[in-house]
């Protein structure tokens, strides 16, 4: 049982980690939170579902579709909730993204209907058995994909000019601007990227949980944020650490509390960390 929960925790943790990175990215650049991240995740899931159900049951295509949809939605949110509200206290942007969150939710419900839809499953058969725990191909695939994505991001931030720009703007946007970095463009790209990541996770989640509905984004959004706070919202390694820890802790907690309270654990962790250690486990660290 214990190892099974661990395996599940690592798998879910991979998803949380990626969402947490999305939050971290936006926070690091703008000191802002995109409340609608969960809904972008949800649209990613729907995008993947459309591809797989109506176009071709190709997982990679679904992932790409999700990524693209998330990129677009991230771009929209940035233009309205952040760019248009420059100079206004951050809380206005947050409230605006709260509006987006509800807008997206209801648009999805209006278009796709509120019923939960099933997603065709992939690779769900058991691959290996480790210490009494069944690990499915899908789980391996998801963790691999997530880690792969993290490595790609690492490459992006440390190996490309754009990545350098992002890091510079996160550290000090004024100086970055003075050095010739186009801060507007960097911000826009980073924001779109954060949306794309969330949507990417959405596709994976849709397959893993085999269920899609317009309201599925709320809880993962909060959990992604919790994970980011948990590990330290200012850094990406923190987000990753937070994601995996949250996934593992949540799944382990099923041993002790009934499954109805599973989400409860995350919310409690969020409040506890906000109150006592808002800088997360890793503490205050510049973006790395």
């Amino acid at each position, binding site marked *: 049982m214990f190892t099974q929960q661990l395996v599940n925790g690592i798998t879910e943790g991979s998803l949380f980690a990626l969402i947490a990175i999305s939050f971290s990215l936006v926070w690091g650049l*703008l000191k*802002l*939170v995109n*409340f609608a991240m969960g809904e972008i995740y949800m649209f990613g899931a729907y995008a993947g579902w459309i591809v797989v159900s109506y176009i071709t049951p190709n997982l990679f295509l679904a992932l790409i579709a999700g990524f693209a949809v998330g990129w677009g939605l991230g771009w929209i949110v940035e233009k*309205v*909730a952040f760019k*248009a*509200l*420059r*100079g*206004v*206290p*951050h*809380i*206005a942007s*947050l*409230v*605006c993204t*709260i*509006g*987006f*969150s*509800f*807008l*997206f*939710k*209801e*648009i999805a*419900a*209006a278009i796709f209907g509120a019923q939960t839809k099933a997603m065709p499953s992939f690779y769900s058969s058991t691959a290996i058995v480790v210490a009494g725990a069944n690990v499915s191909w899908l789980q391996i695939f998801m963790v691999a994909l997530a880690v792969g994505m993290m490595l790609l991001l690492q490459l992006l931030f440390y190996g490309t000019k754009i990545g350098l720009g992002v890091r510079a703007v996160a550290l000090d*946007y*004024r100086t970055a*601007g*003075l050095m*010739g970095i*186009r*801060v*507007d463009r960097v911000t826009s790209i980073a924001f779109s990227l954060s949306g794309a990541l969330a949507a990417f996770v959405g596709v994976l989640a849709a397959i893993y949980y085999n269920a899609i509905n317009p309201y599925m984004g*709320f809880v993962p959004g*909060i959990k992604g*944020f*919790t994970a980011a*706070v948990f590990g330290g919202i200012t850094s990406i390694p923190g987000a990753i650490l937070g994601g995996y820890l949250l996934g593992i802790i949540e799944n382990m907690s099923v041993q002790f509390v*009934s499954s*109805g*309270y599973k*989400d*409860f654990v995350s*919310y*409690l962790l*969020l*409040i506890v960390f*906000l*109150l006592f250690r*808002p800088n997360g486990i890793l503490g205050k660290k510049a973006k790395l």
Partner: protein
Amino acid sequence: MISISRKYRLVLQLCVGLLLIALPYLLGNQYFVRIATMIGIYVVLASSLNLIIGFTGMYSLGHGAFYGIGAYASAILSLSLHWPFWVTMPLAGLFTAMVGAFLGLATLRLRQTFLVFGTLAFGEIVRILIMNWNSLTRGPMGIPGIPVPSLFGFSFKNFSNYYYLVLAFAALVVFLIARLYRSRVGRAWVAIREDEVAASTMGVPVFGYKVLAFTISCLFTGLAGAFYGHFVRYISADQFGMNESFLILTMVALGGTGSIIGPVIGAVILMLIPEVFRFLAQYRSVLYGAILILVIVIKPEGLAGVKGLFVPPSGTARFQFRKRKIDPAAEGQAGGGAA
């Protein structure tokens, strides 16, 4: 908003008052009276959330939860102890205020963004507790059969009667909030919203007043919950989740933050939208999100609101970039201007 001179304001208030009293007879239809009653309850909810948002500048997304706590407290007390509404309702309010005080004490030191999530998490925790604490709350089945209030044999079962009850309640709450606003307490709150630091050097204990606003707000919200429970007579946890918190927030944002009339306007408009926009069918709910976005971007203080919430604090430079390179000298000048 249009400013009306003192004399006319009194006349206007009198007319509106008479209109409200005559409303059930003017409407005729019980369905509309029901809506009017719900508007009354939402007026209280929005006004009390405005205490937190508009007067102290803190944002809370947990108000749905307090609404639910009030409703459940009154329902549980009525059904298990058989106490009359007139006892359970104030008790529910006080209990909710207490919970609010605790939450406030714990979370009001957080910066705004984190406060939103903190209150949100709290709201979800409450909802989960209600859903799973079967022995107390009957979990997901909700609580049916909440008794109708009665006074010396006069029952409020009739929708019109309940409407008057809620009307009196809402009028009282708005009146109390108006009095608070124009007092030393209200000035301290507005000072906190405008500039916390300066307020503290004037002798305002900022944190204490924030908790006070939160507590009083939760008192009214809890009372509203009790009124709601005994009106609809069946409550369940899913009525008090994020959707509810969001609805109340949008009412405050649209109607106007930091003013007395703002939340009233917001409550009326947002309650009437489902009726007016019936033709949109399932796309109605899309409106709410769109409204909030539009309000924030176009007129952040809302229709009848008082500015001051979304203005950059003095001395803050703006994140201001165009396609051209920034000019540090010019940036210093630009800071502090209107958004």
